[in-house]
Every structure is written in C-alpha cells, then in structure tokens.
C-alpha cells in the first residue's frame, strides 16, 4: 500500500465500486476504503435499463446469469384497488439483483481492474484550505491510524454521507419524500405473473404515498416491501413486522392474494427519513456520489442505478481532464448533470402521486408514454428534446424540483484554495 493515490474512494457499494472500476481501468491509482465485511444485506434490488448498460460495459453480463439474477422485462404498476394497471418495458437489457452478491461482484471487478481495497474506518478528511488532500483512517482489526494522500477524494459512503457529516459537503436536508417509512424482507413461494413477466418489478399502489414493491431477486426469492407515511404507521402497527403484515392485507387486493402461502426467509427491516439532499456535493478535489448526496424515494428503483450512472459519469469526466491543472470543470459539469437528472426524477415521482389519473392518461398517449418509458429507464440525465419534464414542471409549479431551486452548479462554489 502506498501513501499517495490518484483517487481515494470511501465506500465500495455500487457507487464506489463502479467509479473505481472505471477509473482503475484507465490507469489511475485507486484506493477504496470499506468498513463493512462483504457480503452484506442491502436494499435496492432492481436495476433500470441505464444501470444494465453499466453492467454490460463492465463485462459482467455472463456473471449475472450465473448468479441467477432475473432478467427484467419491465415494471408492472397495479393501481388502487387493482382496478387499473400499466406496464413499462425497459429499453436496455437489465436485471433484478440480490445486493449481497451483486455488490461483491462489482467490487471484485474493480479489484480486477486495479483498485486496491483497504478495510478501515474513515476518521477525518484532510484539507489544505478548501482543497481535499487525503483521508485519515483507522484500519480494521486495530493498528495505528494512518493518513492516505490523494489528488481526488470520492465520498461513496451511502446514507452515512461522510463528507456532509465532516462539514465539507453541505448539510443534510430532508427532501420531498421524507416522512415515509419502508418495511421489507425476502419471501419464498409467492406466485408470479406467467412467462418472462415473472421477472418484472411489480408496484402496487393505494391512496397517496401508500405503496408496495415486489422484486424477484432469484428464481425462487422475492423482495417485498411496504411503504407508508409515518402517520399511517403509528395508526396501524407497533412494529415493522406488523406494518408489513398490515401492508400485505391492505395495500392492494392483488398482494393479499399472492401472499397466502408465502413464507419469509429474511428478517424484517425498516428504513425511514430516507429522502434527503446535500448541497453542495462537489468541491475542490472532492465529490459525493449516489446516496452520499441524495436519495429521493425508492418507488421507481432509481437508487442503485443513479449511483452507478453517477459513478460512470464522474469517472469519464475526470479521466478526460486528468492532465489539466485542476478538476474544476469536470466536477462542475458532473454536478450540473446530476442535478438535472435527479430533479427530473423528483418531478416524475411527485407528479405520479399528485396526479395519478393524469399519469395514467399520459401513459396511454404514445408520444408522452415513450418519454416516460425512457425516464423510467434512467434517461432523466438526458432530457434534451423531451416534452414530459416541462409538462411535469408546469403542472407541479412550486413543488417542481426543476424550478424551485437553482441547480447547485449555479450556486457559488469555491473551487480554489
């Protein structure tokens, strides 16, 4: 192990491992710091079409089949009281995954590409003025604290949001979909739709902000989760197990039917106060990726995909400009790109809940529908020439993330010491 790397990455989930895999492949020296032992459980088990593209670029397609990950034709959305339903196909080959093994797969690919891995806990980010210069860590299993120098530091620490906690990135502020709680586990013996559609994500919704997901993560196991507003949870349940049982019985008649013979094969977990954003999330020689700066809402499975797409994007931007005097331009471009995509995704989710009837009609209109299919697939980051983002912005008014706040990239950002 060296004292100095081109890039130090904190966290080896999908954001960190993907960034490392791309950067190391381009010949940069990359050290990743991880505190957890792998494999470990994680939520976020469905990939969009754009994440499928990243998986294929990393050459992992054959491994996905070996791991028994279902190939995902698309998303079936079953409406209130199961009275209506629509299907959104994926535009690119993509998969449903078990995160314990998927995250390990990505990390192994990064190591094969040249990433070094250090098992350690991050203590403090080191700076020279505003410029990040390295990371102080405590190695796992004891040993002396050490300082690792780097030109670029990437925070991929997930919901821990290390750089925000360090006061380097902006403060963590609750975002639009806070106040929701998710309860989830894995099940066997849940009947699925026939044929390839067995591998679809199925979303079931009820009244405002009450919904559930079903994601097949292998040929026999389904991830199932229920999302409720905090107030509902207080009224109907006193434990996560009860909340999940309540959701199975009450969210949608279609769920109750499917779960009559199901049995649970994982413990029940809960997830709350999950919607937040951190701004600014890039600065002189540092950037936050994925959950380390923003998490909207799990409904359209954007979490892992956005993390991987952001990781790919920043790696491509940085390697293209690595020989420049500073990294200001690629980081600024990256922040703008991220804000654009995340804000459109925010509006898509907001509009879906606020105007479900109209969302349904727009899904019948071929021109709009094709755009929504692309947005579901991850095209939020490339909205050029699309009509739907403007339509959502106009309908949401004040609640649109596209107009309420200027993108972080337009806010003053000190990029030099």
């Amino acid at each position, binding site marked *: 192990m060296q004292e100095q790397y081109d890039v130090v990455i904190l966290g080896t989930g999908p954001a960190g491992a993907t960034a490392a895999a791309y950067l190391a492949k381009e010949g940069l020296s990359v050290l990743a710091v991880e505190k957890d032992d792998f494999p470990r459980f994680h939520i976020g088990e469905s990939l969009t079409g754009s994440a499928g593209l990243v998986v294929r670029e990393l050459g992992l397609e054959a491994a996905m089949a070996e791991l028994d990950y279902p190939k995902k*034709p*698309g998303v079936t959305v*079953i*409406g*209130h009281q*199961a*009275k*209506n*339903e*629509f*299907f*959104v*196909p994926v535009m690119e080959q993509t998969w449903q995954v078990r995160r314990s093994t998927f995250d390990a797969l990505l990390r192994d690919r990064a190591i094969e590409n040249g990433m070094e891995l250090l098992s350690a806990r991050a203590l403090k980010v080191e700076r020279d003025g505003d410029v990040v210069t390295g990371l102080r860590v405590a190695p796992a299993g004891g040993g002396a604290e050490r300082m690792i120098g780097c030109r670029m530091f990437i925070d991929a620490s997930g919901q821990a949001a290390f750089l925000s906690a360090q006061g380097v990135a902006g403060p963590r502020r609750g975002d639009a979909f806070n106040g929701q709680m998710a309860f989830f586990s894995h099940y066997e013996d849940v009947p699925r*739709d*026939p*044929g*390839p*559609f067995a591998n679809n994500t199925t979303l079931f919704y009820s009244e405002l902000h009450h919904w559930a997901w079903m994601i097949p993560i292998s040929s026999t196991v389904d991830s199932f989760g229920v999302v409720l507003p905090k107030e509902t949870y207080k009224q109907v349940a006193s434990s996560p197990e009860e909340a999940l049982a309540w959701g199975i019985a009450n969210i949608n008649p*279609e769920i109750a039917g499917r779960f009559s013979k199901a049995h649970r094969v994982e413990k029940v977990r809960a997830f709350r106060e999950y919607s937040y954003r951190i701004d600014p999330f890039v600065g002189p020689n540092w950037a936050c990726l994925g959950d380390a700066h923003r998490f909207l809402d799990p409904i359209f499975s954007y979490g892992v995909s956005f993390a991987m797409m952001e990781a790919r994007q920043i790696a491509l931007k940085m390697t293209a400009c690595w020989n420049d005097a500073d990294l200001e331009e690629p980081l600024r471009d990256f922040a703008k790109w991220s804000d654009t995509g995340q804000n459109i995704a925010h509006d898509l989710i907001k509009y879906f809940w*606020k*105007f*479900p*009837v*109209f969302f*349904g*009609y*727009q899904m*019948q*209109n*071929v021109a709009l*529908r094709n755009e929504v299919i692309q947005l579901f697939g991850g095209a939020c980051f490339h909205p050029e020439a699309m009509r739907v983002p403007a*339509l959502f912005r*106009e*309908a949401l008014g004040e609640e649109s993330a596209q107009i309420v706040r200027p993108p972080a990239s337009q806010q003053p950002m000190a990029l030099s010491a």
Partner: protein
Amino acid sequence: MELAAADISSELTDFTNHDILHGQGQDLTPDTPLLELGILDSLSMVSLLAFIEERYGVKIAEEEIAPKHFSDLQAVTTLILTHTQNQEAGARPADELRQLVSLQQSYGLRSVEVETPGRRHHMLQSDGAEPMWLLLPALGNPSTSWAPVMRALSGEQRSVALDFGGFGLSEYKGEAPSYIDHVEATLAVLDQLTAAPVVLVASSAGAMVAVEIARRRPDKIHALVVTGFGLIADPDSWWRELRSLSVSPEKFMEAAYYSPPPLTPVLRRILAGVLARPAYYSFLDQGGLEAMRASFDDIQTPTLFVAGEADRIIGRQAVEDACARIDGACVSWIARCGHFPPVERPEPFLWYVRDFLQSL
C-alpha cells in the same frame, strides 16, 4: 347549439354532484378544487369525459387530459368552450364508428380505403418499417379495436387493421358474408396491399380467417399471432353461450374483460349496433362453426398464441389444444387480462409479439 359558459359550468356541477359524488357534494361549485380534494379518480374521469362527449359533442383528446384543464369545473368549462367554438357546424361525424376513426386519425393513424372487385374495404394504417403487420379484429369489432397497439407501432412498424365486410366502415352488399367470404375478401385486400410476406395478427374469431389464409397461402405469411382464440371442443354450445351473453352488454363486458370499462352511452350504442348487424350472425352460422373444428390443422407458419389468463370466452384448455396442433407453436399468457389482450393489455401484448418475431 350555442351554450354559454354559465350553462356549461352549471350542468357540469349538477353532473358531478349527482353522478360522481352521488348527491354527497351539495357544496361543490365551479371553483371547487377537484384535484386537491381527490374528487377525480380514474373511474369518475371516464364518466366525466363520457358526459362531455354526450352532452356537448366534444371529444377531449388524451393530449388535453392534463391537470391544468381539470383543476376545477371552471377550467373544464373553458376546455369545452375552446372545442365548441372551433367546431364547424356539421364537421363532427354523426356516426360513432366514424368518430372513433377520426379520433385515431388525430393520433397519426391513417384511414384508408381499398377497392377489390365489387367491394370497398376500410382500414386503419400506421406507417413504418416492413414486414407489414395485418391486424384482423374480433368478430364484430371495428378496426379501431387495434388502435391501442397501432398507436404504439406508429412511425416504427407498418400495420394495417381491416374492417371486415359488414363491420366497421367496410361495406358488404348483398347477402350477409360467411367466414369464407371474409377469407377471400381479406386475401384480395392483402394481395393489393403488398407482395411481400406479412405478419398476420388476429383476435378472437378473426383468427379463423387468419389460420385459413395461413393454410391456403403460407408464402404470404411470415408469422402468425393468434390472441383470444383456441380450439373449441363444442362450437355449437360455445356459440349459443356467446349469443346469450351478447344480449346484455353488461354480461358480455363482464365475461370479456378482467376489469370491464364503464359502459358509457357511446359504448352501449356501439355494442348494440354490432349486435344488430346481420354479418355478426352469418360469420359463424354459414359454415363457420363446422370449420372451427379443423381451424388449427395443417398450419406450417410459425405461430404464437397470446392469451389472457382471465379470458372467460375462450378457456385455457382451448388455447392449449390449438397450440398443440401446430408444430413449434407456443402460448404467452398475460396475467389479469381477459378476452382482448390488445385492448386490455396492449403493452404486454406487443412485448410478447416483438419477442416472438425476434426469435424467428
């Protein structure tokens, strides 16, 4: 008919109070925020649009079904007025089937007529790449029943949905046509449309015409897709049952759909119109029922069946029996779907057809 804004908004208020809120909405006024109060859901929206169409002769395009036009009844009134003021007197086709066609034209599908000796055939068309898909409707259904699928194909795939003679906007002079007449007429149309092999996609009893064409002219058919049809063990009692269902639109819709759409007055009139046509009965009464028993024999064309798991008109066994008669054929089942997958679940239907064509 010149209606003032005040009249329209007061009628809309009455309708919403009585028919949507069932008398529970005495406080509702033209500026009550409909969306914020959750008054409009997917079912009440269908009723409201049907009322507007019936009362004011205004068909609101999907494009216009946006929150800004439905924030309150005042906004809906404004939307209606923009239509009635733009409407030239007599410009609206009187006949419901023509209205359905002109609505699809506004979405970019084309209404085309083809002449074959002694006949004029109407069809709906989407432009796009070859091979052409020839879409045959179910017994009694107009070509517009294929519109949900065709609009998704528009610009990508050339497709033609035919109105069978005596149905939709296709004429049939003289005797009511038998199913063999439909086979011959469809072949004549096909020869005019293209010399290249086509993908033949047929719904319900329309599939009887499709399989006969595939049997007679395998050179013309690249692939065959049959939906909502199978090998019926006892055609006579099946036909009796279907006719008794058809007496009541409610019963028919209940059997044909997993979740039946609300029976609007327009839909009711279209259904009644179909059942009044002699062609509806002559299709099977003149030799069709006998032919059913051998429908799926001697088919060499690659064939896909797409079936709704909740089809109460053609059972699972009938689909599987038909599939077993054709070498290499397979069935794709669609969950929560009745007798008309292209209407009830157009997206999964298309997904399966495209997947099948790619596999050839």
